[in-house]
């Protein structure tokens, strides 16, 4: 055996290669040669239940029973490969999978002389051309030449060699061939077809794209049927002792029965009609044996009505031999169930149901230090949770704890034994959700065994898995070796993936309630009583003292900022605008600002500013969490998310954060001014249409007059109008409104959604155009043909609060459907692109000298990314962020 050393690349490890694989058709001689027996009788077993010689389950076709030795190769069941048998067909039948090829051969060759219907001179020319193309390796051109020759030969009216007129050949699916003459339509029997195919010369076969050596055309008509080995069609013995045979065996019995009957008829000289009937039946059985899904003939069924599986059905499709078995991968020590959220878990934990924990095991070697512990587990056995399922003794004997005296086994436990114990709290597990597009689609979590039946995860880790809880299922795998567990802990644990190599920012971070809660906690107006402050800190597991209260009289009060500061490192400095400050009205330029939207942390104290999406959110590079993780490590990042973030949700719960219909209603005069704005813009649109009608509209560069009008109207009715309405509405929405809090802090929704709810939806579009499709000249029959006014083409003047009228609802649904179609198309396209990219890039590796090379050592890049920077460890793409360094040390 060859051993491999470190410096080996793929090209010098592989010593022999499969250069090519070629498929052909088996000749009758070949089939007979490999056959070990002829199947002649329909009887399968004798009275003692033993297989009959010459039956379809003949012993010579391989040993499948335990203890049986094969009469051919002398092996037992485990090592006998199985042997083919054969059936001599009384009359030939067409192979259904080759009918198309047979048709081509029949059409392109002469009926009487069997030669290709192309003049000799031309034929020689083509032969030479074919040889040349072969030599040059131009396979695509070769294919096209074959196609050309075929078409040419098929369209010739009379044979250029013998002058016989060509008759039209018709294929009636799935396997009947007819010759069309002036007077009648005559059916060709398989024997006739075979005779004609035999006459075609080897050279002509090659010209037509065939292979005369490995696929002679006449072999497409079967005279001998191979019978697959018994291993390929094992019989199942039920508990009741009744033997149930494989579908293929049933089918083979049918074929033998009909074949024998046909043979009898032929030998006794029965009338032609009877012979032909039996022949047709044989053809049907052989066809459905090969493929039971051919259209045009009824599918073959069991007596019970169940559809039989043909050979093609075994191979075809997603669950066929190729995609389902050969390329399928399956593992042990894994679990799958529905997932549900549990914010009280740590971000790197996974809640495992007890029922699952009792099945998944870890092999643990007995040592003097864990022997007492493992004895207890063995005593508990497989049924009681912290238990064990198997014990392996040093001599390799494996004892199932289900059926033995566990007390005795526990007593006999000694160092060197291996106990397969249940998974326990603190064990490591790999957690995965499909589609696994990412490396963060599989991460290692620490096990927490919990009651109930779902796998549980902290909602903060939903984004990397792209998981939600509307019925999603996820998989859990338990690494079995010490190396695998070490690798999982060191490389795959959740906290190692908070920062992503995609852009260097955190992928895991606060969302929704976490952000609302962070705002509510850190906003200036929040003051907490001792009780509340203690409650909040209790959720984090904080063990220290309460800080000095910010307000002493008349009562002691603490601020939320004080509580957050407890968890910040003493030497941490940070200064950045919050998401709140991205709205111009709330922006803070310097420290001296009433809006409190500039987050300032000095020496680990949150002095000013509210925390929101820009500070604690996910996918926010250069944010508070990002710098905390960069400066104090992933472990601190995890601790921060396990403590402070819990406080945020708790705040949200204590506050009773909610939104209602009332929060979206604007005052009467606001509604009036909105309606006035809508009226103005509608009038403007009307004027544009008027201008267009008069021909006075100036077209935009590169657009027709109609396109310009459409663009102008869309601009007026959606962008401009919505902005104006938003301006009016924001005056009525203050930060005391929970909807506004969510929109402004980035927890959920945005200011545009606000206008859509309280104001109006505006112009609806499909593919960037106003809604036009439907009836001739109008979208719905409620409008006059040719009406191009705003209302007729999908303008919605109401918001969700007031409700849409029926026409508006229809418009909205039309535009909404476009979004759905886009996502459906995008996912399939990006999925396929992803697959191709992965296939192309999967073997590339960054070597120690910084070069990127393929498996065979070819250089792709001399320095990874041309700058050698790992984006995960870089400062948002740059190697050093000087501003941040200054801020970090000078505050």
């Amino acid at each position, binding site marked *: 055996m060859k051993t491999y050393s470190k410096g080996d690349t793929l090209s010098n490890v592989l010593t022999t290669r499969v250069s090519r694989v070629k498929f052909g058709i088996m000749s009758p001689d070949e089939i007979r040669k490999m056959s070990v027996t002829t199947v002649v009788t329909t009887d399968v077993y004798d009275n003692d239940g033993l297989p009959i010689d010459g039956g379809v389950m003949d012993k010579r076709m391989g040993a499948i029973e335990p203890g049986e030795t094969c009469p051919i190769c002398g092996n037992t069941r485990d090592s006998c490969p199985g042997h083919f048998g054969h059936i001599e067909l009384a009359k030939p039948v067409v192979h259904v999978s080759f009918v198309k090829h047979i048709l081509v051969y029949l059409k392109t060759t002469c009926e009487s002389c069997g030669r290709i219907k192309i003049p000799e001179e031309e034929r020689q020319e083509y032969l030479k051309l074919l040889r040349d193309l072969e030599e040059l390796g131009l396979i695509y051109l070769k294919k096209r030449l074959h196609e050309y020759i075929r078409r040419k030969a098929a369209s010739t009216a009379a044979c250029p060699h013998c002058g016989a007129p060509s008759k039209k050949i018709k294929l009636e699916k799935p396997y009947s061939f007819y010759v069309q003459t002036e007077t009648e339509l005559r059916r060709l029997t398989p024997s006739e077809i075979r005779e004609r195919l035999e006459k075609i010369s080897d050279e002509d076969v090659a010209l037509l794209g065939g292979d005369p050596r490995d696929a002679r055309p006449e072999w497409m008509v079967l005279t001998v049927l191979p019978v697959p080995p018994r291993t390929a069609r094992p019989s199942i013995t039920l508990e009741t002792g009744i033997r149930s045979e494989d579908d293929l065996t049933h089918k083979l019995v049918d074929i033998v029965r009909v074949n024998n009957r046909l043979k009898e008829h032929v030998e006794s000289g029965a009338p032609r009609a009877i012979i032909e009937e039996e022949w047709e039946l044989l053809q049907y059985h052989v066809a459905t044996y090969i493929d039971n899904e051919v259209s045009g003939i009824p599918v073959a069924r069991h007596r019970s009505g169940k559809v039989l599986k043909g050979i093609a059905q075994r191979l075809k499709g997603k669950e066929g031999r190729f995609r389902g078995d050969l390329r399928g991968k399956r593992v042990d020590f894994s679990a799958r169930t529905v997932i549900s959220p549990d914010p009280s878990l740590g971000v790197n934990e996974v809640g495992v149901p007890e029922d699952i924990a009792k099945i998944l095991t870890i092999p643990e070697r007995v040592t003097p230090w864990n022997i007492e512990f493992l004895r207890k587990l063995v005593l508990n056995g497989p049924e009681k949770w912290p238990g064990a399922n198997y014990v392996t003794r040093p001599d390799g004997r494996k004892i199932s704890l289900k059926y033995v005296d566990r007390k005795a086994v526990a007593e006999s436990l000694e160092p060197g034994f291996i106990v397969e114990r249940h998974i326990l709290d603190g064990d490591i597990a790999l957690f995965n959700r499909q589609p696994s597009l990412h490396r963060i689609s599989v991460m290692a979590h620490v096990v927490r065994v919990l009651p109930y039946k779902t796998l549980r995860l902290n909602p903060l880790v939903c984004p990397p898995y792209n998981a939600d809880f509307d019925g999603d299922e996820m998989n859990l795998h338990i690494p079995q070796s010490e190396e695998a567990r070490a690798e999982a802990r060191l490389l795959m644990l959740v906290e190692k993936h908070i920062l992503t190599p995609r852009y260097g920012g955190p992928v895991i971070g606060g969302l929704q309630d976490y952000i609302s809660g962070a705002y509510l906690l850190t906003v200036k107006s929040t003051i907490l009583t001792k009780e509340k402050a203690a409650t909040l800190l209790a959720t984090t597991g904080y063990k220290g003292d309460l800080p000095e209260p910010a307000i002493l009289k008349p009562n002691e009060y603490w601020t939320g900022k004080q509580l957050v500061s407890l968890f910040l490192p003493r030497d941490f400095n940070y200064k950045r605008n919050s998401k709140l400050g991205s709205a111009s009205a709330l922006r803070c330029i310097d420290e001296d600002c009433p809006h409190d939207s500039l987050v300032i942390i000095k020496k680990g104290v949150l002095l000013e500013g509210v925390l929101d999406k820009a500070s604690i959110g996910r996918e926010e590079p250069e944010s508070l969490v990002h710098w905390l993780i960069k400066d104090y490590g992933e472990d601190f990042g995890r601790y921060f998310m396990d403590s402070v973030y819990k406080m945020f949700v708790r705040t949200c719960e204590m506050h009773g954060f909610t939104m209602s219909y009332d929060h979206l209603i604007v005052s009467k005069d606001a509604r009036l001014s909105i309606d006035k704005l809508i009226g103005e813009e509608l009038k403007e649109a009307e004027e544009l249409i008027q201008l267009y009608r008069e021909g006075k509209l100036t077209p935009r560069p590169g657009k027709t007059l109609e396109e310009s009008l459409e663009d102008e109207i869309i601009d007026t009715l959606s962008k401009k109008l919505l902005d104006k309405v938003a301006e009016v509405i924001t005056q009525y929405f203050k930060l005391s409104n929970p909807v506004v809090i969510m929109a402004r802090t980035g927890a959920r929704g945005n200011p545009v959604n606000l206008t859509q709810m309280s104001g109006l939806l505006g112009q609806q579009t499909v593919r960037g155009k106003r809604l036009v499709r439907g009836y001739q000249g109008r979208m719905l029959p409620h409008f006059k043909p040719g009406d191009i006014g705003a209302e007729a083409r999908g303008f919605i003047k109401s918001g969700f609060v007031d409700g849409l009228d029926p026409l508006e609802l229809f418009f909205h649904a039309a535009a909404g459907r476009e979004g759905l179609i886009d996502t459906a198309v995008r996912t399939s396209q990006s999925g396929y692109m992803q697959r191709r990219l992965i296939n192309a890039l999967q073997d590339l590796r960054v070597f120690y000298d910084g070069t990127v090379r393929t498996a065979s050592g*070819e*250089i792709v890049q*001399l320095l990874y*990314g*041309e*700058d050698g*920077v790992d984006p995960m460890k870089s400062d948002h*793409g740059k190697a050093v962020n000087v501003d941040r360094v200054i801020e970090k040390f000078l505050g």
Partner: protein
Amino acid sequence: MREEINILEHELVPRHEVVPPREALELLRKLGIEPWQLPWISADDPVVKAIGAKPGDIIRIIRKSPTAGEFVAYRYVVVEVTKKS
């Protein structure tokens, strides 16, 4: 009359130069590779013809990079790009 254009002067064409054999050997030794393991460039490539490189030569390309400012890449001049050794 057709105007002769020197493609090397175009602003989108980075600097190409033939690496002298001595330097090329040094480079291959440093990377620990055979010449064919470098990325290939066809001898028919307009730039290769413009700088007069021949099959078997190694070309140095010095180009601007959005991530690294300036980046040096190498190409191995071959006759037929599609056939791997």
